[in-house]
């Protein structure tokens, strides 16, 4: 009889369950979460929002840290994966499914039904969003939005679980430093600084969030925001471009993509901290690797085409030739300066149809152009010299009254009133033509470089893939340019951006990427979806000093490294051949090296020569045999 009872109590034994203190800690954390749930249902909480919000956040943070302390503090320095595959939460059991569904629901509400979280478009928020108002007002001065709630919880998760991760890997300095770094970047760059920028009337900008991960960076509204913010905005835009084309390639060359993916990035940050208990769930099969390569590179194509389209249409929108009755110009003074293209008179007529108030044509050369096709124009228009009116234009842009002098000394001058809305066209130094050709040139250059110098580093299918993608992108761009310069690509740029935002931004990186942590592992987005990771990875594979060195013949094929690789890389397949690991998807988290019981793996930066070293016979055997086999290729 007693035997049966023993068997029934199996689940109550370590390491399957958590200890008593951990249970208490979980309860505390859940209380914090519970407060948010109560707020969601608009239950009026006595004592005011500040107290409840503080209680909730503190309870959750304390719960997490206490949990970590109770779980790890009494243990010796070493690997703490006991029971990972016995616990329901970390082995796709009931708890994992419940958590997965809960997070997924949260994301669905966040992206598509923020009203259920309490968002009110015009008026005071209610629900859980209202609970966060005090904190938001403290930082930016504005009431909270669903994104602020999300940002706060996200940051809290990275900080709390970051501490947990450090407890777990206390003996490993690489892990500790790396975690401090992601915690810092999340708290400062992603959370606090952007809010403070808003408070200072500057554009909201997370400096570390680079294109193409930040696919909205070049969206029209964002560029307008940067440009209208004067020098600071311009600096931000320039910083954004420099980080893509200069900073990132240099750092990736020196250290591999880990500098971003495991030290800076917020998605990576969450995966490494809150996602750590699920890292081993990544799919290690070769099929998964195949799927990964197709999906992630398709996303890169998508984001490239989309961004090009968005910028293209933005530049196009800046051309006065494209003014039409649908341009939103009601009561505005239109300033244009492009002498090529549609006749100026025709443009003025279009502006009139769009209900513009007046049109100013600025010219730079010495001679003022004459305007044709003027019959039927009823609104005011003048031709004015750019240089003569410098002062006046400046005053107008600042919202004050000024007079623009007509180039024809007999003609009337135009008085622009205080606070008059103006619309400026033709003020970019790049044209859409230049832009398209620039992109085509850049892509061709990269492609040619790879095919000329790095051909040997690519597998056959990778080569075909690269050629295929290159042809597809170029044909889309060329087709658009030649066939129908008026319309954009096959789709409207705005629609394209919207579908990208829905499919990739929300569904992939949010719902699947985080919601499915407990089922698919923590880096699904980073591995299959993130275009930034793909581009950095591409460079890491072909042009970087980073590799994971395999230590001679020491591997015993145990499989710990592969199991705990969150990117699903079969590390062992390389290690047991004595071969270094040079993979585009490796984010350099260092966990494979940490869990290896034989000290076989070391992440390091070194000369590019000999970085990739295929071997058949490992160090330790007859030297002649090693040479015979390893050099025969």
């Amino acid at each position, binding site marked *: 009889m007693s035997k049966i009872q023993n068997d029934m109590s199996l689940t109550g034994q370590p390491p399957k369950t958590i200890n008593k203190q951990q249970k208490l800690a979980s309860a505390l954390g859940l209380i914090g979460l519970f407060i948010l749930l109560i707020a969601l249902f608009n239950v009026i909480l006595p004592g005011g929002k500040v107290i409840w919000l503080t209680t909730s956040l503190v309870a959750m943070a304390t719960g997490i840290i206490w949990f970590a302390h109770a779980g790890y503090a009494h243990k010796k320095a070493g690997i703490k994966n006991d029971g990972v595959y016995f616990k329901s939460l970390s082995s796709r059991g009931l708890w994992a499914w419940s958590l997965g569904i809960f997070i997924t629901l949260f994301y669905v509400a966040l992206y598509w039904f923020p009203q259920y979280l309490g968002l009110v478009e015009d008026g005071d928020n209610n629900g859980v969003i209202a609970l966060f108002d005090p904190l938001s007002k403290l930082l930016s001065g504005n009431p909270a939005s669903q994104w602020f709630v999300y940002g706060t919880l996200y940051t809290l998760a990275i900080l709390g679980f970051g501490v947990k991760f450090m407890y777990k890997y206390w003996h490993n300095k690489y892990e500790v430093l790396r975690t401090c770094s992601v915690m810092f970047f999340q708290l400062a760059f992603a959370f606090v600084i952007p809010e403070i920028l808003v408070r200072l009337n500057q554009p909201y900008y997370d400096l570390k969030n680079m294109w193409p991960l930040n696919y909205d960076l070049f969206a029209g509204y964002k560029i307008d925001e940067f440009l209208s913010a004067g020098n600071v905005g311009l600096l931000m835009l320039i910083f954004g471009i420099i980080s893509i084309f200069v900073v990132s390639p240099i750092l990736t060359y020196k250290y591999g993509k880990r500098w971003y993916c495991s030290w800076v990035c917020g998605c990576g940050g969450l995966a490494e901290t809150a996602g750590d208990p699920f890292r081993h769930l990544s799919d290690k099969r070769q099929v998964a690797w195949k799927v990964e390569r197709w999906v992630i590179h398709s996303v890169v194509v998508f984001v490239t085409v989309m961004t090009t389209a968005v910028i293209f249409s933005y530049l196009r929108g800046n051309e006065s030739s494209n003014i039409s009755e649908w341009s939103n110009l009601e009561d505005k003074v239109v300033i244009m300066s492009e002498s090529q293209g549609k006749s100026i008179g025709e443009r003025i007529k279009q502006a009139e149809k769009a209900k513009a108030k007046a049109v100013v044509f600025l010219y730079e050369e010495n001679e003022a152009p004459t305007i044709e096709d003027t019959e039927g124009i009823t609104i005011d228009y003048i031709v004015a010299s750019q240089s003569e009116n410098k002062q006046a234009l400046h005053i107008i842009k600042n919202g004050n009254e000024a007079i623009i002098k007509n180039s024809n000394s007999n003609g009337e001058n135009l008085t622009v009133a205080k606070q008059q809305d103006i619309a400026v066209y033709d003020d970019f130094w790049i044209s859409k033509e230049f832009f398209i050709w620039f992109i085509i040139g850049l892509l061709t250059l990269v492609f040619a470089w790879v095919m000329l110098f790095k051909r040997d580093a690519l597998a056959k299918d990778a080569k075909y893939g690269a050629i295929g993608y290159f042809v597809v992108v170029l044909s889309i761009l060329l087709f658009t340019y030649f066939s129908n310069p008026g319309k954009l690509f096959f789709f409207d740029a705005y629609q394209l951006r919207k579908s990208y935002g829905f499919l990739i931004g929300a569904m992939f990186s949010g719902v699947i990427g985080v919601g499915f942590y407990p089922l698919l592992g923590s880096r699904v987005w980073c591995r299959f979806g993130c275009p930034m990771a793909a581009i950095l990875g591409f460079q890491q594979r072909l042009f970087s000093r980073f590799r994971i060195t395999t230590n*001679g013949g020491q591997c*015993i094929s145990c499989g710990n490294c592969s199991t705990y690789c969150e990117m699903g890389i079969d590390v062992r397949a390389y290690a047991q051949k004595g071969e270094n690991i040079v993979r585009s998807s490796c984010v350099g988290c260092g966990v494979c090296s940490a869990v290896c019981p034989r000290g076989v793996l070391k992440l390091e930066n070194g000369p590019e020569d000999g970085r990739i070293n295929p071997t058949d016979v490992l160090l330790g055997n007859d030297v002649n045999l090693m040479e015979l086999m390893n050099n025969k290729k």
Partner: protein
Amino acid sequence: MKHVVIIGNGIAGVTAARHIRKLSDHKITIISAETDHFFSRTALMYIYMGHMKFEHTKPYEDKFWKKNRIDLKKAFVSQILPDKKEVVTKDGENITYDSLILATGSKPNMFGWPGQDLDGVQGLYSYQDLQSLEKNAPNKKVCNRAVIVGGGLIGIEMAEMLRTRDIPVTFLVRETSFWNGVLPSGESEMINKHIKDHHIDLRLNTNLKEIIADENGRAKAVVIEETGEELPCNVVGLTAGVTPNVEFLKDSPIALGKGIKVNRLLETNIKDIYAIGDCAEQHEAIGNRRTIEAVWYTGRMMGETVAQTICGNPMEYNPGHWFNSAKFLDIEYQTYGWVFSERNKKDEELHFHWKHADNTKCITIAYHRDTGQFLGINTFGIRMRHNVIDNWLTEKRDVEYVVNHLKEANFDPEFYTHFENDILATFSKTKATI
């Protein structure tokens, strides 16, 4: 088409098969009785501890074998008929071969202890042993205490495994200090302490006398030779080393010692039959090596070598410098070249020993008394770069050079604290006192 039959799907047999496939188009069949597919024996402990599942211990995906045209057969070979060039399975099937590779591995040592066949008494070698342990010691309620007999690498792994389920463990070690037949005393003592820190009841100088059964024929206690003390327990782990798994060859004409006798070409006394891995026994030791080398790497290296011979490029087994590694609970251990324990070392072998104050890191460098030549290094808690040390051994560097250049050989993860300066200072000091 030549048919190569391999008995045993461990690292030795599988490496041979892979290399034969690389070098030739021979038909290859691997026969093994333990599991359908090759798995890593060294990872058995991680399954019990919940770090991995069985499937993670398989180094190749299941489809690998078909893709590489390596036929797998799950069967136990009971007999070999060299005259007919056939092997006979237990189910009575006859399979003909042109070349036969024996890679049958080891089995745990049993020294004829009274009670060694009782329920609850087991070794830890095969996948089946792991399943028994899961049954015998699922948790601390079913298993109130386990006693492990034999202080080697598998014994300490078994102790670590049981401790993850909070099962009290008593560890009986015959020697005066843990594994001191292999480790120099400073290191061995450090590990003694580490074992005790992990709440394992380590009993040195202690032998097993007998295992006592309860009324159902299950182990219920062990008796200790020296004191006569009776220790109640539910599980007894016998981990006093391994011995080649060659029982089924007793009646065959294949020459046996402890293992299967082979020459440097890994040939047995019978033409076209080879033996590799744990089960092979060299006629004469190669250098300082033992005639039977029961470690992972040597099995692999013999597999690499025998494949050449079978594919028409006769090649002697000619291992380079010795190396090995293990992990004692949380402390990683690596060794390169030869560092002998006090018990086994010759007078010419001198040691320089450094230990960190926290008692989890130390190194021992062995060098020649007269020439100062570097002979080998043991490190605990510090990872070393295999190829650098291998070069030093080949180049016959002296101990001064090694101590001064230790940094080049460091393989710890980035940002780890380095101890080379401290080691060098200690070295200079000890030298001054000589």
